[in-house]
């Protein structure tokens, strides 16, 4: 894209930024560059009160979902309340109450996640590293769910991650439409709001739904996550030898395995947009299987490794290309004792 074409687009962006003034009470930062738009997007997602319906398409499947989101003050601190419900097929819903997330699916035990504290999302895109791995281009003004949007192209600079087209609400910065594409330009998944409101306040019914006491799940399904401690300090005896540049550890946990009585170590990585998780689980089942699968938009690679007399399942799962996941999975190895001492 040459400068002659870029300049009018920047004007468009500036105009869009003026739109921000309206929403100043709701979003805290003005957006004048694509990376600031992304910051605004995250803040809008977390801070605004909204309700809407959106569709999620992946391969041949198309699903309708509903979301309601608001903030509540608890002891002077703002806490997110959010509910995402699947409207098609098996009833499933996710409810977020501050740092607790409960996922309920008909016919299964609810799974509950408790965070001790949350990592602030601020500064994710303006910190200076993001643009090494993605090129951001303002593309056009568009309209989604009857709202004016600013379209951004997020183009990866290497083949280790997918590209995105994002449509952000011009007023608030909320993500209204997202298309994820692979390096060939094939669409992997698509999310798009079909209806969206910013009601100011949710109805009493909606709030009750968000605040209701959630079903207690069996103890084994409660996952305590401690995401504010520095993952590098975790005293695990393994490490991922290779992760694509730009991905850094964002969270970790150790929980009971779904398939054995072992603990599974989990390390979550993100480059700001994409993320993947590495799971390492000692294996006692002696039915050792390795699998490489593309499940929807997610790559899932499972390998069996041996360290001395012990066997481990290493699984990499995330919205990254399969080749990337494979490469990460085979790089997992025992942590060197000397390295451990260094840290």
């Amino acid at each position, binding site marked *: 894209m040459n400068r002659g074409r870029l300049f009018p687009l920047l004007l468009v962006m500036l105009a869009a930024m003026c739109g921000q003034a309206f929403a100043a009470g709701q979003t805290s930062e003005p957006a004048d560059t694509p990376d600031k738009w992304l910051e605004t997007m995250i803040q809008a997602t977390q801070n605004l009160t909204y309700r809407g319906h959106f569709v999620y398409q992946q391969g041949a499947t198309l699903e309708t979902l509903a979301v309601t989101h608001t903030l509540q003050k608890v002891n002077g601190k703002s806490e997110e309340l959010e509910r995402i419900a699947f409207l098609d097929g098996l009833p499933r819903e996710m409810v977020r109450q501050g740092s607790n997330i409960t996922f309920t699916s008909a016919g299964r035990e609810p799974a509950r996640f408790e965070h001790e504290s949350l990592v602030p999302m601020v500064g994710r895109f303006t910190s200076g590293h993001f643009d090494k791995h993605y090129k951001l281009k303002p593309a056009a003004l568009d309209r989604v769910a009857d709202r004016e949007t600013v379209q951004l192209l997020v183009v990866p600079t290497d083949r280790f991650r997918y590209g995105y087209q994002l449509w952000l609400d011009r007023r608030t910065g909320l993500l209204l439409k997202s298309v994820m594409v692979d390096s060939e330009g094939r669409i992997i998944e698509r999310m798009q709001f079909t209806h969206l409101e910013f009601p100011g306040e949710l109805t009493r019914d909606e709030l009750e739904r968000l605040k209701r006491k959630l079903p207690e799940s069996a103890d084994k399904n409660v996952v305590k996550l401690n995401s504010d401690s520095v993952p590098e300090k975790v005293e695990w005896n393994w490490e991922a030898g290779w992760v694509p540049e730009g991905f850094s550890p964002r969270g970790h946990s150790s929980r009971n395995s779904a*398939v054995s009585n072992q603990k599974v170590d989990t390390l979550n990585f993100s480059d700001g947009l994409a993320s993947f998780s590495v799971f390492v689980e000692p294996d006692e089942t002696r039915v050792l299987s390795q699998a490489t699968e593309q499940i929807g938009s997610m790559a899932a690679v499972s390998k069996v490794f041996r360290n001395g007399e012990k066997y481990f399942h290493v699984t990499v799962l995330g919205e990254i290309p399969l080749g990337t996941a494979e490469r990460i999975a085979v790089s997992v190895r025992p942590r060197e004792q000397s390295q451990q001492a260094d840290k």
Partner: protein
Amino acid sequence: MSEKASHNHAQERLKESLSAAMDGEAGEFELRRVLDNIGSDEDLRDKARRYQMMGDALRHESNEFMNIDLSAGIRDRLEAEAPHSVTEAVSVSRQGVLAVVDQWWSKAGRVAVAASVAFAVLLGVKNYNTSPDAEPLVATINDQTTLSQPLQVAQNGYGASGIKAGYNSRQHDSITPEQLAQAQSVADRATKERFRAYALQHAEMSAMNSGQGILPFARLTTFESQ
């Protein structure tokens, strides 16, 4: 090799199938063919071993974590070709099962490989006495000369996929494709269950740690509908 031409032809096709299976590209029919033959065909097993090692060498810097299927430690045992059979029928607690397996493992003469997209190494244990509440996933065959069926060992906290599967090294030529396929399906189910549980946790962490807002949970749709 001194086989007849037709046999050679069959061998060639088998090798092609094996190659496809190793790459995870074999169709069900091809997979069956490999599984039917790998137990009795030394040549084919050698080839599988080499494929596996080549793959390892390509993928790995040499490190202590070794790709398990047929790499060094196991290969040595395979090559020792000492047929063992662990026939002690031990009545076991959970620890007992694992201890027995460990014990067996250390003396194991052979392992066999069921090649498939989800590569499963089925370890041979002739006879498992599981705890009384254990539910066999499939009816256990009492005929001791055949494969002991994959069992679901319903141990405390083991969940749906605490699985033992395998066959005795001595009888492993007599495994039927059906039995291997069953073992395979058990292994696949464990993999699926694992992926599902991991996917949920990944969604949760991504929701907290990446900038994707509502997307991480929407993505679970694919897992749930399977």
